[in-house]
């Protein structure tokens, strides 16, 4: 996709004038900028682009952009995005949301969207907490996090591994970024949009309100030193030793894409002939 000079739109014009509900210091401000930067870099026509989300802090993003959008129900962004993409393959469809929306209530759709491998980009802002409901453990929360009233002794449950599950399920592009590096995340998103099939970009996006310790993420995250692979076995081995803070592209595959043809070959009258006695 080449940006045409005539249609070039600055990144800021992909933002709406509507003020986000996020807390000061939230990582999602930066991810919003990365998304609009990626759109600008690719020169996406606004009317041909859609951002689809479910429910949660990060799922508010569609309203903060100036493209088409759908803010649906909790956990179903990928299903809605799949319907849109299959029905309108010429559109660029980006789904956004958080770890609770995508991996807990929407976990089944995550598996099957990766498996189906429609050409959708999924940007997950992972802060390991439910922010909108004021601080409960999410699927990616570590088992010993005891700050939630809902799980005062920690969840005791192993965290969800989004990258490993995406890889195992059939995603075609898998990357991780950190919201503290907005340009890096923008590059990942732009590449994910361009890469055919289902693309997952997990963005570590701190919740400074309920997980203030995540401010340390800027010290912990590091760009992976190993380049991406197109080999699922190699990618799986890398994930075995991954501590969740390596950023960059893990996997770029070439798995078959789901996009049924929408060519018409018959009329309704033709179909109805089958019913004639």
């Amino acid at each position, binding site marked *: 996709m080449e940006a045409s000079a005539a249609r070039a739109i600055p990144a800021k014009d992909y933002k709406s004038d509507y003020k986000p509900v996020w807390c000061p210091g939230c990582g999602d401000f930066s991810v919003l900028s990365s998304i609009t930067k990626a759109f600008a870099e690719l020169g996406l026509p606004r*009317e041909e682009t859609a951002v689809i989300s479910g429910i949660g802090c990060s799922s508010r993003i569609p309203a903060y952009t100036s493209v088409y959008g759908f803010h*649906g129900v909790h956990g179903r962004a990928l299903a809605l995005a799949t*319907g849109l993409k*299959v029905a*309108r393959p010429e559109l660029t469809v980006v789904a956004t949301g958080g770890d609770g929306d995508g991996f807990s209530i929407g976990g089944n759709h995550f598996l099957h969207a990766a498996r189906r491998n429609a050409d959708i980009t999924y940007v997950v802002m992972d802060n390991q907490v439910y922010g909108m409901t004021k601080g409960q453990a999410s699927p990616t929360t570590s088992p010993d996090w005891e700050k939630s009233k809902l799980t005062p002794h920690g969840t005791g449950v192993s965290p969800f591994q989004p990258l490993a599950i995406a890889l195992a399920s059939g995603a075609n592009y898998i990357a991780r970024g950190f919201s503290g590096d907005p340009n890096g995340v923008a590059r990942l998103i732009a590449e994910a949009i361009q890469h055919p099939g289902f693309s997952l970009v997990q963005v570590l996006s701190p919740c400074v309100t309920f997980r203030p310790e995540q401010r340390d993420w800027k010290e912990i995250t590091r760009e992976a030193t190993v380049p991406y692979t197109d080999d699922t076995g190699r990618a799986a081995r890398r994930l075995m030793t991954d501590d969740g803070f390596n950023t960059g592209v893990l996997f770029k595959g070439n798995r078959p894409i789901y996009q049924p*043809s929408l060519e018409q070959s018959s009329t309704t009258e033709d179909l109805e002939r089958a019913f*004639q006695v």
Partner: protein
Amino acid sequence: MSSNTVSIAITGAGGAGVMTAGQSLLDAAAKAGWYGLMTRSSGPQIRGGEAAAFLRLSPRPVGCPDDRYDVLFAFDWMNVERFSAEIPLDEKSVIICDAAAGDAPEVMTKSGARLVSLPLKDTVKSIPGGRVNMIGLGILAALSGVPMKAVDAVVDDALARKGKEALAASKAGVQAGFEMAKAINVDEIALDASGGSEKGRWSISGNEAAGCGAIRGGVRFVAAYPITPATEILEWLAPNLEKVGGTLVQAEDELASVNMIIGGSFGGKPSLTATSGPGLALMTEAIGLSVASETPIVIVNVMRGGPSTGIPTKSEQSDLNIALNGLHGDAPHIVTAANSIADCLSTTQWTVHLSEKLQAAAIVLSDQSLGQSRAIIDKPVDSGLVAEREVVADGVKDYNRYAVTPSGVSPMAIPGTRGGEYVADGLEHSPLGRPSSAAGDHTIQLDKRERKLTQFDFGDRWADVDGDGDLVVITWGSSTAPAAEACERARAEGISTRMISLRLLTPAQASRLEGLLKGVKKILIVEQSHSKQFYRYLRAEYDLPHDAEVRVFKRPGPLPIRPGELLSEIRSWS
């Protein structure tokens, strides 16, 4: 019992060829120019197990099974007691069975029906490659009065691909059956086969009809999850949508399928899913999203016995409550009901039109007895009603997706439209589409979403009204056919009755129904539910005449409501 109709039940173990014999007989009757209906019943086994085909043939259109069966043809007696309640027999009935199958069980013979035992297995031995079910087909065709040439034509069509030998064996079996039938006194059963023509007739199931109506209405995107008894809608749509430039996605569950069609519809494609009770229950949250975001979708719900897994393979009209009232919040939507197999086509088509026109969520209620039965019908006339969504033109300025309009319908921007970029939202919103928790915005949008349904003129399709009289039968869906037949028989006896079958259940057309009920003294409400769901709905939505006596004939599934039972009810009241 009504004249000029013949009813046949065929039962047997899996693999006996019950369904093939039944289907071939129906097809042959169609070739002979008759109408007919075939319903299926089977045990809980996925494959094999006992099966039953119930047929009713007539020179006149057939809407429901009759009160009784003229003939029970039993290939064997395996688990036949499972069907005994579905096969009312009497002393005028004939039970035909294989001499090799052993004694007929008492549950079948206690009716007083004449038992005719024939050497079916022995006869088939003399036909190389022959099958008992083809002999059965021959016997039943002969008893019904279907000419042999019509049966031969059907066998030709069905077996042409299987080679000359298979064809010859089948035809020999049919001929042997015709010969054997001579030994049975057929005069009182057989219909007059003269004068009929198959021209302009269709053979179609309710589920196929719903699929066809969807495509006629303009549906081009379907996402769905398989569920009994709705799956055939999807299996018909998958290959056929593809031919007209649409597509069907098999989703991972019903939560996905309903959200996928919201996505497809947001993209501008008229979108539909089909399901049954458990699936509809899973979809209700997202149907609310369709209502709030004003993204039109259609859900065809083919009802089965409930609650929970219930009786998946049998019919019941018990999803009325959830279809009408299952959504959270104040969520005005459309619920329609198909009242015949043919009407599965026209009502689905109409509902697609309404949903798109009003940017509304719409549920079409069908049920197992309509969906999985096959009928010979006159080709349904195309109403010409198609999806016509009000949209804005490319380059629109100062666009407000949820602008307040007198009709309540606000023109929609389809992705690809420059200047129309908006965010569809399940959050309450301002006219611009921005999330809003302001009391004013909430009231304005609630009013608008209600107004677009209440102010719309739904025309004459809201109900089928037949006959005149101060006894009025009010019914809906698949209960319509037995009610209509009961009213017709009552009229023939000089009892004047009017029948009203509601097709549009919500928004309720209160003034229209109340107008029809003015001065009426007797109201008989007919429905197939245990808790009188339809009666309660009528009480809630309409002002029934205060001085009218209201009776309810209700029964849960799986047994069908038979016209004779309703006729007795009407007689006892006049």
